């Protein structure tokens, strides 16, 4: 599949040539045709925000998936740590009274 006369490839002159710098990672959120919320669809690399949106268009909306794209640089996302799982989430397991299942819904309220 190569071209007939590709341009000469300049091999790195020294071994000091560093591994190439990667573009930053971006997390991509897309709002679908009928969806109300943007949903996380995956990630990609891009040099800046504008390029991230364009790359997202090419990588994640090829099959007519979306009508709106958000790109967020991954380093700006604050995430909970897996090691906090115990103190973060387990206390909620024993608090069934936080679920709204102890109330009788009046018939007039209809389906909720």
């Amino acid at each position: 599949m190569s071209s007939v006369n590709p341009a000469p490839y300049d091999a790195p002159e020294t071994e000091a040539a560093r591994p190439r710098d990667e573009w930053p990672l971006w997390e991509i959120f897309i709002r679908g045709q009928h969806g109300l919320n943007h949903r996380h669809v995956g990630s990609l690399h891009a040099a800046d925000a504008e390029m991230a949106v364009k790359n997202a268009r090419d990588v994640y909306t090829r099959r007519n998936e979306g009508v709106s794209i958000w790109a967020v640089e991954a380093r700006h996302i604050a995430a909970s740590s897996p090691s906090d799982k115990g103190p973060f989430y387990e206390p909620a397991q024993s608090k069934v009274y936080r679920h709204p299942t102890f109330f009788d819904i009046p018939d007039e309220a209809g389906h909720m």
Partner: protein
Amino acid sequence: MTPQDLFQYLLRLGDNTLVLGHRTSEWCGTGPVLEEDIALANTALDLIGQTQMWLGYAGEVESEGRSADDLAMLRDVWDFRNVLLVEQPNGDFGQTMMRQFLFDLWHDLMLANLQKSADPRIAEIAEKASKEVRYHLERSTDTVVGLGDGSPESHRRMQAALNLLWPYVGELFVPDDIDAAAVAAGIGPDPAGIGAQYRNLADEVMARATLAIPSDPFAHKGGKSGFRHTEHLGHMLTEMQWLQRAYPGATW
């Protein structure tokens, strides 16, 4: 405009998108990064889709029962009517994107004019294609500016690409009898008229990209008339057409 002239006019439009679409598809799986690889594949598919419309209509105008596939896969190099620019080899990624930009800019202006064509079928195809091409142009402009005004290495490569490809740009704007017939019939624009607009926009982008357009006005010609293609087109066709040549009528 005679049907013969209109047929030639449509071949020019369809062969440009066919040849550039195939060239661009050569990057499939070998792009520098995943995102650019898939973007190039999307561009190639857009161009091939446009080819189906242009060559499909060309076959109807010719009225000899040839389909878009027949025209794409069973003509030899001397029957192709694409400009020389689009058959030039990919080179490195920068050279590919420079070629893409130089074509996209013309393509966008051309389609804007063709949407006003007196031929409703041409106007319709142009309208559909112009949305795709507007995006191609945005993307190739960003890349030319980004790499031109990038590192010393990327700047050097982009300037080399511009120096190599600019002499193939002039052909886009040299009118001939078929163009004149299209203008007279209200079917298409005067190529020379688009030229001035093109140059202004190209100057603007190259200034942002810190690249210098060569001052020599020399232009290679012979693609859209079919008089003399560069040696690259024949090689490309042997690869593009081999399956239909080796297994005539094969389908999947």
